[in-house]
């Protein structure tokens, strides 16, 4: 399945078809004895916003962790922006930002320290102003110096979103970004994701949330029996 390049998606050096942000061919992944992904074929062009749906255990998290280079495919070929996920994992990882379902922050550090740490490790060289701006954007200025262990689940999710904003990777991967958030927080996620797409970022999110009116995805995919099928798409987005 190809979610083709549209609009502002950059062409490659030869001026031809742009390199897909995500390119999967026959990707298989087992978890224990279960084959969770059974031959995923998918191309997502740069600058697209794609929603991934599926029942519990359908493989959404597995697929996102695979794209974030945390899991290796057992068969098939997986590329991010042309970089092989196994042979050139470091190069692929440099283009990815993951917001996992657990938030991924350190409970014994403050919100501000968590963001500074992420920027330092990722080599983004973000300054204090940018960290403060990211915290303000998600409404956590008042809790910036509070230890994350005292955050609510929703606040942890907002902190994860602030980290995504701060690092602003080329490919945003989000696993249940709406979970634990109040309605205002959910709208904030919608706005941030829409703006990320506007900056040319590719966004792939797994969610059970239905009908997010503030989000206009380019396509909605469904994972069924370990394979991807198209559930809905904006006009002229799906290629041959």
């Amino acid at each position, binding site marked *: 399945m190809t979610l083709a390049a549209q609009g502002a998606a950059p062409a490659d050096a030869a001026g031809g078809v742009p390199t897909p942000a995500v390119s999967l061919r026959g990707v298989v992944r087992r978890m224990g004895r279960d084959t969770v992904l059974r031959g995923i074929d998918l191309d997502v062009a740069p600058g697209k916003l794609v929603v991934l749906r599926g029942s519990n255990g359908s493989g959404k998290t597995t697929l996102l962790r695979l794209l*974030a*280079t*945390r899991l290796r495919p057992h068969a098939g070929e997986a590329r991010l922006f042309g970089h092989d996920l196994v042979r050139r994992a470091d190069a692929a990882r440099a283009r990815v930002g993951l917001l996992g379902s657990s*938030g991924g922050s*350190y409970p014994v550090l403050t919100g501000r320290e968590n963001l500074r740490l992420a920027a330092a490790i*990722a080599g983004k060289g973000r300054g204090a102003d940018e960290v403060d701006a990211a915290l303000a954007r998600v409404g956590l200025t008042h809790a910036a110096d509070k230890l994350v262990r005292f955050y609510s689940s929703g606040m942890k999710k907002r902190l994860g979103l602030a980290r995504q904003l701060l690092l602003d990777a080329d490919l945003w991967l989000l696993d249940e970004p709406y979970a634990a958030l109040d309605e205002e927080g959910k709208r904030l996620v919608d706005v941030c994701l829409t703006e990320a797409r506007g900056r040319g970022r590719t966004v792939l999110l797994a969610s059970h949330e239905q009908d997010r009116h503030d989000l206009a995805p380019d396509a909605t995919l469904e994972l069924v029996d370990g394979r991807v099928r198209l559930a809905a798409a904006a006009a002229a987005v799906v290629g041959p």
Partner: protein
Amino acid sequence: MSDLAAVLAIARKDLLQELRSKAATVATVFFTATTLLMMAFALGREQGVLERSAPGVLWVALVFAGVTAAAQSFQADLEDGALDQLLTYPVPRAAVYLGKMLATWAYLSVLGLLLAPIATTLYGAAVTGTAAVALLALTVVLGAFGFATIATLYAVLTANLQAREALLPVLMFPVVVPIVLAAVRATESLLGGAGGPVGDWLLLLLGFDLVYFVVCASLFHFVVDE
């Protein structure tokens, strides 16, 4: 340069976490104090026996404390999916390993440097001369380095296992024997025992440190990548 910054950021994060939570500190200080006292009582009042046992007891206490510290360093990463997040940042796996290892090494070195004078005093073993004191400190730092290289790899290997507290020492101790042996012998030489020339043991310790460091740093990505 950015990889070095990442290494230092990870090490600083681990030390800051320990400073705040004191999770490993409480366990290791209690354990080492108990070990030193219990062994002193068990070995009796004969001065010669206590003195000869000092190097072995010191390193046994340090090694067991090191297992606790290494296991703890990954526990904090497992909470809230932080390890998963850490491993998606665009830095080589070796940089993550090095950051974690540096923090464990620093922690164990400080613990060892505090423990050594307590153990020698309690067991009546004398370290005479500034050079001997400096060499004992070097032995502790080199021994802690070798131990930290192995402990970091095995701690992440067992981090997701239910029986990690039991498995970590079982898997690790056979591998760490050359480090402990060289460190005990070097300490023995410095405390006036029959350990032989201290320089030879320190060179052996340094050699094992380098070999283990290269091997463990190279193997780390096989362990963390599923």
